[in-house]
């Protein structure tokens, strides 16, 4: 077996067996899972160095479908746990895996501010436009590609995670389609290498509850970015999104990538021996 295949096998240990995975047959998240395993294998990361933070919903289950440490808390909280873990130990590879509802509805506060904070965390949004687990309620990305009817408070237009990420200052913004896992894996590799916050909006169709944004619909609408797109140019990124909108297409690829200047941090002390020699003098001095 090739090294890549060995590495791929590694990511299947300590995980829910394949036949026990509880996604609907044909769920877009299978493509995401394959892409994720391929990217982690290609980067030759070790499972003990990886922390997968899952959101609530079908998508968040992915954390248990591959090897690596995993955490899962409240609905909308994934990014904030990931932030804390990454601040505590910058040597970890921290990946937040959440749905569009988790990220852009109940977790929007974290999305906005983590874009600003720019921790070296990768966020993979498994975007299907619905709350699948609760049987198909509309999520904030619902309505993609649909004719814009009369807007009401109950039925507002959809949120575009790419534009929102750009506005909030994300330093890596990309879009992928789970029907094209090879491309998704390529983008994930770049995201995981990015020394800041990386947002990937992955179109991951819900085959049960979204009968509009289907695989076929996506195949018709997605289009890879032109080769000459300058991802480091913020203005070009905006222009590109508008151009694709204009022709009714969804861009796939890295729309924006511009690492910030960062202060390096070390892992915070946690072992007994690292916490033994602590001098209270500088603190006591304040109170004399």
């Amino acid at each position, binding site marked *: 077996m090739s090294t890549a295949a060995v590495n791929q096998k590694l990511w299947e240990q*300590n995980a*829910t067996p394949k036949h026990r995975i509880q996604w609907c047959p044909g769920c877009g998240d299978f493509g995401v899972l394959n892409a994720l395993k391929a990217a982690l294998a290609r980067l030759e990361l*070790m*499972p*003990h*160095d*990886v*922390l997968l*933070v*899952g959101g609530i919903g079908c998508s968040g*289950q992915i*954390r*248990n479908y591959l*090897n*690596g*440490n*995993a*955490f*899962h*808390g*409240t609905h909308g*909280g994934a990014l*904030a*746990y*990931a*932030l*804390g*873990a*990454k*601040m*505590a*130990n910058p*040597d*970890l590879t921290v990946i937040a895996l959440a749905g569009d509802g988790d990220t852009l509805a109940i977790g929007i*506060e*974290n999305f*906005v*501010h983590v874009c600003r904070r720019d921790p070296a965390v990768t966020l993979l949004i498994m975007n299907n436009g619905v709350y699948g687990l609760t049987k198909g309620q509309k999520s904030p990305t619902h309505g993609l590609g649909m004719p814009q009817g009369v807007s009401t408070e109950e039925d507002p237009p959809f949120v575009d995670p790419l534009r929102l990420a750009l506005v909030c200052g994300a330093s890596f913004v990309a879009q992928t389609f789970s029907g094209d896992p090879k491309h998704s894996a390529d983008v994930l590799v770049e995201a995981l290498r990015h020394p800041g916050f990386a947002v990937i909006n992955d179109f991951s169709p819900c085959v049960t509850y979204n009968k509009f944004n289907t695989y076929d619909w996506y195949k018709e609408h997605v289009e890879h970015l032109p080769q000459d797109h300058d991802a480091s140019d913020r203005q070009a990124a905006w222009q590109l999104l508008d151009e694709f909108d204009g022709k009714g297409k969804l861009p796939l690829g890295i729309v924006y990538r511009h690492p910030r200047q960062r202060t390096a*941090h*070390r*892992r*915070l*002390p*946690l*072992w*007994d021996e*690292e*916490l*033994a020699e*602590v001098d*209270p003098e*500088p*603190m*006591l001095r*304040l*109170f*004399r």
Partner: protein
Amino acid sequence: MVVNNLKLLVGGVQLRDGVTTVTDILGKMFVRAGLHVLAMEKGYASTIYGAHQYDPMVVSATPPLSYGDDRSDILVALEFDTNPDAPVQPNRDTILRHGKNLADGGVLLYDSTTGTVDVSDLERRGVKVFPLPARQIALRELKREVVKNTVVTGALLRLLEFDMDLALFRQYLEERFGRKGKDIVELNLEAARRGRAVIEEVLRANGWRDVGYRLVPQPTTGRAVLLNGNDALSMGAILAGCRFYAGYPITPASAILEFMEAHLPRYGGRALQGQNERESIRAAIGAAVAGVRSAVGSSGPGISLKVEEFGVAGVTETPVVIIDTQRAGPSTGMPTKPEQGDLAMAVFAGHGEIPRIVLAAGTIEECYTLAFEAFDLADKYQCPVFLLSDLTLADGRRDVPEEFFRTHRRPVVRHGLLREADLRQDGYRRYQITESGISPRNVPGVPGGIFKSSGSEHDEQGMITTDPPKRKAMVEKRMRKMQTYLKEDAKPPLVFGTPDGAVLLVGWGSTRLPMLDAQARLHAEGLETCVVHFTHLWPFPTHLVRPLLQRGKDIIVVEQNYAGQLADLIQQECLLPTRRILKYNGRPFYTSDITGGVRQLLTNGTRVVRVGDRAPAVVLETVPEGD
């Protein structure tokens, strides 16, 4: 002549007059001179500027038992102006509000820049009055308004015949402003001398030799510091190994965040100002998952916003210390006023059931010592640990010998964190069912093992399950940790006095000092009481508490809330009837509240006494306050 025993109250307009600048300088100088200082009732408002601020301070030869009642011996009013819009209510809040509580024969020092104030009622009670045009001296003579407080400080030092050669004051200034600030030091010393000259003139004009109060330096065995509960708690947390702290700005917990931001990086740690209360606790949980000792701090409204995360920490078995410096609630309540209203929240809040530990500090010193315990317990039991403080402790200051911090420090021992060699052995299961309920724990980044952890119910591997036997076993495993805690770590309440046949005064939190003071006063009046004070509140140590309380005659619970939350817990857990003295008017417990309440309960047989009806001396127009 009263030597080394007085209560001084400095008041003025918030932000403008620098009330705490004066009390901070004085307090530190007194402590350096070997005196004991206790200032537990910093009165301030939830507004930046303009409200009345006051800061009473007990100074004594021995460590004061309590801050006593609202009586003071020496009143310093920093307000210098009159209010042209309200001639009957000039801007003289300090005199109007606190003059009534000034002791007969006490001292009043006030800024007379815009004219003298009619205080004939005070003079009739033998109060010695010292008008001092401090602002005028600062502005006209020294050309720097900022030194008006130094003029007052110099005057006050002369009144108390303390540091007459200004040597201590010079030392303080030099340390503060350093060599570069030579001019500033000289300017301040000159300001102090001018203040002092005014006092000498008034003394001479009235033919007074002194004011009847004096502070005399005393020999000390070692150096002491003057600090508040937030300071002590922060320092304790850092020495206990806390290396990640998160908080969202809120009174009175913000000072902990600021302390952590200033000092954690020095010790290799990081402090995060959350964008909201949830981000704070979630980031703290994330850091704890990564293996770091981690804490989050807030006050009531912020703690309410974190409730869902209690369950996450409980079920994922993530150790996190949650600090709640309580203030008067509910909702925004009274942000700058004390209350003990969050006990029920700490013990019960959240859906479902989780193991949790609740500790409450009763003194500034305990803010330090319980911090060590909180982090140790969180590590050992892998659950949220609540460390309750309250506004009285958070803002109150007292002198503590430096030796205390050394002798009460505990070495950091991380319980149960597995290293590579442990993980390499077969069969590591993050949520292994054990007799103690405590499972082994790994940290991401350590080779040899991984964990899967989840807020959803899970099996021993951390994989989600709803299988009834597995669910039952996992709930029982988690809750069994609390049985282990009760066996190995629960502590009985502190007992002051002999409980047998005595009236038991039972409390928790910052009420301890006034309760002890009340005990002494009641003893002098012939009534024996025993003070029972809780620090370890949950899991409730029924096996230690019930036999203790049964030895007493009456159980009187003293609490700063409406319902009597500890009293309810005692009744629920010990099946013993309680009587209650309750106060929730936004002022701390005074000793007389407790002595009066006890007498009332014992004579008229009621079950509950609600104290604190007495209105402030003068009700001024309402100052609008914020959050």
